[in-house]
């Protein structure tokens, strides 16, 4: 039975990874909701406020894409550390997209919670 257990665990892990990937864009918009942040700060915010461990090589191209489609804007700010950092902030379109996605997420999550309640309680 062991090989089957392993396969099932792998399938569950794969599903969890896909689920996390699906909400990465929303997570970045949410991380920027309260103000501008630079790339490393966004990574830390995602790690501390959610379970999203994003690879460093992913976040910068993704931020570049969000900027290209007008959801975030960027500016270079000289830091106390002596080098400039590229800060990102939400644009009007980014705030709107964030609100829409958060609304969808809340509705979806609420309906799934109801459905999943018996499974979570273990009945």
């Amino acid at each position, binding site marked *: 039975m062991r090989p089957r257990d392993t396969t099932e665990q792998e399938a569950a*892990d794969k599903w969890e*990874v*896909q689920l*996390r*990937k699906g909400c*990465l864009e929303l997570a970045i918009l949410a991380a920027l909701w309260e103000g501008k942040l*630079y*790339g*490393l700060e966004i990574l830390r915010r995602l790690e501390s406020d959610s379970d*999203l*461990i*994003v*690879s*460093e*090589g*992913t976040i*910068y*191209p*993704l931020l*570049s*894409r969000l900027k*290209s*489609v007008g959801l975030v804007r960027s500016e*270079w700010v*000289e830091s106390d*550390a*002596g*080098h*400039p*950092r*590229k800060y990102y902030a939400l644009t009007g379109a980014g705030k709107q997209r964030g609100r829409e996605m958060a609304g969808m997420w809340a509705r979806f999550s609420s309906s799934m919670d109801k459905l999943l309640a018996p499974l979570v309680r273990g009945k």
Partner: protein
Amino acid sequence: MTTPDHADPKIEAYLAKLRAQLRGFNDQQVAEIVAELRSHMIDKLAISGDAVTPAQVDAILAALGTPEELANQYITDNLLARAEVSRSPLRILDSLFRWASLSVAGFFVLISSVLGYFFGAVFILVAILKPFHPQTAGLWLLHESTGDPEFSFRMGFSSTPPDGRDLLGWWIVPLGLLAGCALVTLTTRSALWCARQYRKSRTLPPT
């Protein structure tokens, strides 16, 4: 934007490789990407403390992936961003050429897309040329009598083939336009789907 005046030689070598792989982005975009990553690395080095070991530098670079992998991410994300703004086949192909220069996956997506767009364009062209060359343009079946038949899209600029017949007649106009547009749309969607899958497969670190 100013460039930090200190950086590790390994970091500079990494950034030089990345810069070379990002050909196709304009100079300002490349400069921004490189400056942002250098800033990221300097922040990470600062976390490591005053005495930075070569192993710590290696770990910082490893966390970003190889220059090729990182360039791949930028190119596929850029492809998806451009597609959100415009789905012009020329723009899609332009981005696919860059992706193909860096990865096998990109190469196969490029080849498939070139074929898809080519046949889509042929369908549309034949449909458009049919009214100008009603006797010769169309989808022809040639060499039927020799037992070795072959299909041929003919634009109508040459004379009527002696051993062949026009299969669709005027139907080539609506069918050609429909099939051509469908093929172009399908090719664009497939290319973007592949780019999304590729990007998703590299979004999170392996668990």
